[in-house]
């Protein structure tokens, strides 16, 4: 079978080989490796056989530790087992990796290398993770491109069987894992030719087998452990040779010859770079370019990093080398150099010391760091490195690609330098995630890569917001192979699929002179130029850019395609870019449409065909004036009123110029100011809510459900209305507590995402026209300026005195200032209303530990973060440790606070005389239970802080340092179901069992949302998810009842969209409980395949159908002789099927596998009915019986302050 040319991403290439060469895979999703497991699972679900003709099994585990354990077990019992991971995931596998290697087990782990979380989490690529695992005894083989991924994955699987040393096959996260590249695919026959079946049989023969029992994994004493450890040496000695043998076999078979160390460049190079991974491709391209210009430079690509074969390395290095620079894509603080540097230095010194005489003079070796967290590493930087090597005293341990103005380690480079081939077409597309730009570009790459002789490459950059996220696609096409493993800096074609982006991003910065600029705009061809900001007009004139325009939304609207302008814009690209002859391009687009949409029906195909034709009709070259005509400049990214850090640092990140920020601008310990989202006005809501005071019943439900705190309620003194803008609306406040006050609902026009949840939640209807509510959506643009002014005025109105009204109600809670605002969460997010509510009720004294996941991304992903402060400067203090440890992390807060509180109390007693018993006594006795008590306690502590400096005793300073611990604190542990049900469950269970006063909020979307829809143990029976493609066959874990079983844990299951009253009550009760509390909050999610506008209705249906019963279990009631279990939802009144049919996560199974789906629906209905009956039974029992059922009251509660 001939080899096909295909365009795929690195993850798919690795997964293909791993799948073909394995029996089993055990995985756990983690970015950027998730795609590998997903591909394998997909092929397994489709019944695709491996090279032995059998279908491999893929299992998703509860953590990477679990995946490694399962792989270890599978290996021990004879399977060819694999896994895919990255970053923290690889770290969690390390214990098993030592075991697997120690037992000389053939295995391959495929790793898309990613940064390890240190001062911050980063999902992007570098070698921190693989370097952290380098001592495990695994071999490490590095691939630098998508083609190399497929090739070297194959070499890894072949070599490990012979070497009996397990392999980590790694490649750069995102840059290679997500880059789409045209490659030659290996066939099953190729793989069969590479895998020696005798070695497979030998592997199986070593399996644990009761027919031939062995003991492995013994415990050894000092007498023999050391010797046994040394017994593996021959295997490691032989390993490099075996790898080379397999590379040679591969070379003969396929024609691509690899070596452990591949040298490229001038045979008598005086300067040589040592590098591995995708960075080596950029170096390779630059080396070729520089040598063509007469220089003598070279590159050693390190393929096999462990075992490091010094001899072969020295052989590969040209003996003409005068200066050698080792580039590491990792940082090892405190080391004498980064790992690869150290290996090279050691190899060269050992060579020299042992009398090796290859070099005329031992070359100077310097080390440098580059590319951490996918930091750009391009030809200009490579040139900078080579230039540095020409200096008499080049910097050692330098950094390149950033400006280190603190320790001055960075080297200079000329950003304009390029080594790219002139004939390569370079196209950059700016779009939104929601408009299909990336999908269209992936399609274009496939067309060009697979239908023509051209090489093709695509790389996609997404911003970190989930709502209104901007995407930038970088596409290269050309007749020569593409090694440019970096972003496009000089584009011959720039497309902007959203006219609004022109106002925010300097899209033409990347445009080459004479480039083509395609703009999707409502403006006509003869006036489009005039609508552009001055800067853009100037760039068009200066660079001689050709402007083309199309009104793609108008065309899409006419064709019933809604907001999906992908086909239209793709057609325009082909029509004017010249990458293919126009007619040929159109023909191929239509063929691709037929292939992509054929199964969706003729109507879909036809509408897309029509989109192609209409696009051509509506595409026009626009007139470009000879001078700037616009009166308008781009607006500043943040207000001049913003704090200095936001203006100088945050604004640069918002503008997409973060790469230019120097080291000195960064906090050294990862500590950032809070409340920065307020400065980033994104204006992504095309429609925003408008308040109708005449219809409003002042329930505040709109504000409660707002995911972005962009609609707010206030009750305030009439005097505050002085100087109100003319259009500011207010009415007399309703309700006894608010008598004499004014009431306002105000929208933040530039922060609202237009999700409409507020309108859906509004219960009031206009008496004359019932389609209208008290909140109605209207276009944002006409009211933006007036509402901006109104909102600014609104924010200056003092918050209603928290002690003067009942905060713990739906209405009251919304008069409290949200201290979580304008996050980057999805439009209509189901999680953030709960998070925001916590901030309103307890935010001014909250300490929050947040598990990695959606909530840590919208809660803590730069450039701006949503946690903020009140007028007193108080607010939640927030941190994310890891994914797996969040409960323990939060418990640590409590342990520390309790200890500090105890110490402070001891010091108060000790210093009572000096401080004054008048203050010490109330401080010791103060146990606030309400807002008034909290205020009083704060006053006592303030007085204490005033008195302490006047006391000379050393303990006064100690007391001062812990005085704040005397204040009532609210410890919150937040995260999603992936954390609480799966990876963090062990810790969560332990923390709940501890009895300490912590509050756990589980934002249950019933799926791994952040990493893209993988099944968790919260995924319901019958739901389709990744790794549950045929619908999950078992029920979701009843986390709540597991906690109830302890008896001393406050547990509530809530769904704001069903009962906001129960929801608020649960938060207040949980927080007031002096012991552990667990709130499980139903969170509708974009991963459910629903219309997010209707998210609250889905919540209601979940409850009404019995899928999600509402309850509260309060151990305090037991002490009062009452049943602690209160069932808050009525018996199911909606068939579960009705709920399931309304969400695509269930419905897609009903459509694709109706019989299986029907069976699962029946099972789910039975389970839901039984669950409700069981809850009802618990709730019906009297207090004494309840103790027997649940164990309530058996344990003491609460040791916290």
């Amino acid at each position, binding site marked *: 079978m001939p080899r096909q040319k295909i365009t795929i991403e690195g993850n798919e290439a690795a997964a293909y080989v791993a799948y073909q060469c394995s029996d089993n895979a055990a995985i756990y999703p983690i970015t950027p490796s998730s795609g590998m497991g997903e591909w394998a699972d997909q092929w397994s679900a489709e019944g695709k056989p491996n090279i032995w003709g059998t279908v491999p099994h893929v299992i998703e585990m509860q953590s990477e530790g679990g995946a490694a354990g399962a792989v270890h077990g599978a290996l021990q019992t004879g399977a060819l087992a694999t896994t895919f991971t990255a970053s923290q995931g690889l770290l969690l596998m390390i214990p098993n990796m030592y075991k697997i290697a120690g037992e000389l087990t053939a295995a391959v782990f495929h790793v898309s290398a990613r940064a390890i979380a240190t001062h911050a989490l980063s999902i992007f690529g570098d070698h921190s993770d693989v370097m952290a695992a380098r001592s495990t005894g695994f071999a490490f083989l590095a691939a630098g491109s998508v083609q190399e991924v497929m090739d070297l994955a194959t070499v890894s699987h072949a070599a490990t069987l012979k070497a009996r040393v397990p392999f980590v096959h790694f490649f750069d996260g*995102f840059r290679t894992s997500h880059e789409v590249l045209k490659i030659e695919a290996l066939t099953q026959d190729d793989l069969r030719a590479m895998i020696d079946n005798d070695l497979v049989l030998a592997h199986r023969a070593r399996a644990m087998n009761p027919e031939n029992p062995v003991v492995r994994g013994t415990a050894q004493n000092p007498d023999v452990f050391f010797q046994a450890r040394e017994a593996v040496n021959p295997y490691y000695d032989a390993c490099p040779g075996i790898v080379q043998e397999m590379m040679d076999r591969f070379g003969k078979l396929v024609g691509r010859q690899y070596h452990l160390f591949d040298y490229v460049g001038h045979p008598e190079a005086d300067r040589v770079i040592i590098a591995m991974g995708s960075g080596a491709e950029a170096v390779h391209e630059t080396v070729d370019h520089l040598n063509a210009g007469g220089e003598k430079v070279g590159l050693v690509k390190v393929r096999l990093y462990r075992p490091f074969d010094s001899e072969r390395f020295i052989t590969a290095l040209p003996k003409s080398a005068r200066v050698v620079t080792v580039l590491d894509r990792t940082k090892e603080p405190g080391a004498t150099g980064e790992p690869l540097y150290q290996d090279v230095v050691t190899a060269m010194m050992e060579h020299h010391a042992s009398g090796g005489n290859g070099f005329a003079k031992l070359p100077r070796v310097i080390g440098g760091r580059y590319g951490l967290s996918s930091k750009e590493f391009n030809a200009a930087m490579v040139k900078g490195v080579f230039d540095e090597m020409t200096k008499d005293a080049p910097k050692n341990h330098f950094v390149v690609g950033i400006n280190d103005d603190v320790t001055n380690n960075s080297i200079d480079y000329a950003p304009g330098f390029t080594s790219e081939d002139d004939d390569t077409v370079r196209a950059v597309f700016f779009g939104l995630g929601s408009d299909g*730009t990336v999908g269209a570009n992936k399609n274009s790459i496939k067309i060009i890569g697979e239908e023509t002789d051209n090489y093709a490459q695509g790389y996609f950059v*997404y911003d970190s917001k989930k709502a209104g996220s901007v995407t930038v696609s970088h596409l290269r096409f050309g007749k020569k192979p593409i090694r440019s493993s970096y972003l496009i800096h000089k584009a011959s074609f720039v497309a902007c699929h959203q006219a609004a982006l022109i106002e925010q991003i300097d899209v033409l910065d990347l445009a080459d002179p004479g480039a083509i600029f395609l703009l999707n705009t409502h403006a006509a061809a003869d006036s489009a130029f005039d609508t552009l900001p001055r800067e853009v007009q100037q760039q068009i004139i200066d660079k001689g850019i050709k402007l083309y325009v199309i009104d793609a939304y108008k065309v899409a609207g006419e064709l019933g395609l809604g907001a999906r302008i992908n086909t239209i814009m793709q057609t325009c690209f082909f029509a004017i870019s010249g990458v293919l002859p126009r007619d040929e391009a159109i023909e191929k687009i239509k063929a691709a449409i037929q292939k992509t949409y054929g199964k969706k029906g003729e*109507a879909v195909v036809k509408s897309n065909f029509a989109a192609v034709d209409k696009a051509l009709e509506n595409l026009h070259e626009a007139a470009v004036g000879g001078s700037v005509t616009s009166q308008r400049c781009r607006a500043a990214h943040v207000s001049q009123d913003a704090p200095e850090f936001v203006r100088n640092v945050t604004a640069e990140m918002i503008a997409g110029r973060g790469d230019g920020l120097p080291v000195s601008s960064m906090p050294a310990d990862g500590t950032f100011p809070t409340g920065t989202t307020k400065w980033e006005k994104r204006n992504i809501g095309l429609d925003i809510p408008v308040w109708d005071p005449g219809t409003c019943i002042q329930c505040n439900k709109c504000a409660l459900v707002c995911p972005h705190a962009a609609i707010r309620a206030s009750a305030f003194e009439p005097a505050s209305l002085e100087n109100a803008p003319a259009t500011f609306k207010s009415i007399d406040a309703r309700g006894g507590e608010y008598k004499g006050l004014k009431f306002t609902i105000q929208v933040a026009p530039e922060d609202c995402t237009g999700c409409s949840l507020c309108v859906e939640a509004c219960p009031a209807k206009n008496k004359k026209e019932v389609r209208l509510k008290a909140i109605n959506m209207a276009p944002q643009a006409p009211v933006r300026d007036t509402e901006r002014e109104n909102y600014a005025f609104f924010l200056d109105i003092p918050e209603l005195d928290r002690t003067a009204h009942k905060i713990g109600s739906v209405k009251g809670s919304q008069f409290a200032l949200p201290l979580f605002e304008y996050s980057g969460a999805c439009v209509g997010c189901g999680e953030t209303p709960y998070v925001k509510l916590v901030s309103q009720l307890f935010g001014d004294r909250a300490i929050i530990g947040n598990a990695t996941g959606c909530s840590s991304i919208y809660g803590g992903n730069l450039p701006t973060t949503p946690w903020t402060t009140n007028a007193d400067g108080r607010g939640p203090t927030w941190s994310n440790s890891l994914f797996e440890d969040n409960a323990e992390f939060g418990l640590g807060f409590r342990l520390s606070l309790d200890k500090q509180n105890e110490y402070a109390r001891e010091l108060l007693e000790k210093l009572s005389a000096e401080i004054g018993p008048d203050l010490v006594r109330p401080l010791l006795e103060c146990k606030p239970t309400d807002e008034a008590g909290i205020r009083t306690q704060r006053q006592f502590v303030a007085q204490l802080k005033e008195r302490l400096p006047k006391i000379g005793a050393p303990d006064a300073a100690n007391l001062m340092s812990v005085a704040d611990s005397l204040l009532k604190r609210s410890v919150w542990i937040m995260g999603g179901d992936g954390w609480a049900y799966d990876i963090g469950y062990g810790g969560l269970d332990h923390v709940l069992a501890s009895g300490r006063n912590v509050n756990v909020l589980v934002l249950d979307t019933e799926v791994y949302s952040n990493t*893209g*829809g993988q099944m968790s143990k919260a995924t319901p029976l019958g739901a389709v998810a990744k790794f549950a493609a045929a619908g999950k066959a078992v029920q979701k874990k009843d986390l709540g009842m597991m906690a109830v079983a302890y008896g001393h844990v406050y547990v509530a299951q809530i769904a704001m969209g069903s009962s906001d009253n129960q929801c608020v009550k649960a938060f207040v009760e949980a927080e007031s409980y002096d012991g552990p509390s667990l709130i499980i909050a139903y969170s509708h999610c974009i991963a459910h*395949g629903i219309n997010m506008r209707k998210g609250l209705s889905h919540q209601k249906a979940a409850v009404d159908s019995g899928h999600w019963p509402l309850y509260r279990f309060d151990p305090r009631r037991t002490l009062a002789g009452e049943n602690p279990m209160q069932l808050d939802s009525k018996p199911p009144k909606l068939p579960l099927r009705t709920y399931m049919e309304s969400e695509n996560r269930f419905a897609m199974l009903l*459509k694709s596998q109706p019989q299986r789906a029907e069976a699962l629906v029946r099972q789910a209905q039975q389970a839901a009915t039984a669950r409700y009956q069981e809850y009802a039974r618990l709730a019906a029992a009297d207090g004494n019986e309840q103790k027997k059922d649940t164990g309530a009251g058996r344990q003491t509660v609460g040791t916290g302050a």
Partner: protein
Amino acid sequence: MMDLSTEYLGMKLKNPLVAGPSPITRDLDNIRALEDAGVGAVVLNSLFEEEIAHGHGAHDHFLDHSTESHAESTSYAPALDYTPVGTEPYLEHLRAVKQAVGIPVFASLNGCTRGGWVEFASELEQAGADGLELNVYQVATDPEVSPADVENNYAEILSAVSKAVRIPVAMKLAPYFSSLPHMAKRLEECGAAGFVLFNRFYQPDIDIDTLEAVPNLSLSAPHEVRLPLRWIAILDPVVKASLAASTAVYTWAEVVKLLMVGADVTQLCATLLRNGAPVVPKLLEGLTAWMEEHEYESVTQLQGCMNHRTTSDPGAFERANYLRALQSYA
């Protein structure tokens, strides 16, 4: 031996009782029971245009929804090579019914635009449907849409479907045309092999507490049979196409009346929903007994004996009836 046979859409049926489209005919076992009970033919439950469009659209939306928007979650659903079932269950049902029963089986399509569902008609033909019932349920709400536009829409849809298939197509009509005979003639020219009278427009209710409109499905009441009774009487002499009565056929007496005014068949819906298949033999027994008592030999003999042309009192079907009715009330 009484000859109950009739001809409908060019096919000979053993009797004029046809199980109309309803949830009953969605189930194969029900259809078997209906055949056993004696119905002459069966019309499957309706496949709605929205189901066809939504089947594709929802799946398409699901696959594309929020994909490629975030670096960590470029998709949210497994990328399996799903073929959305869409209309396949209906086709499968049709195939199964055709295999299971010997009586003619008609498929029913319900829609109001010329969407992809028109093309779907040929798939129904290939799956074995003996005929199609086309239910154009169009509620005209736009003042810019003229009566002619509405009529043209009916005609165009019918023409498109008729061209797509060789099997007979019956048009299910609403009673609200200004000139039903004119419309029927026009549709006959467009290929209608039969008419089903009538489509009942389910009228929504409103909830005075929630201030929302609520769907309200009520089965036809016995007196509603008079509407098709009149119009079948009027159309029978006007068109050559078959006529089916589809509203409020509860007892054998309605069957007799409808046959007399010209119906070729009577469709049973509400009574099957209420009483199930056992009602069929009772109706047949009643019909047979009445015919025997009145010495009719065949249904054919009975059919059309009291239509607008053959009745002794044509005015009863015209304006005169209105006057008489008002006067008789006093």
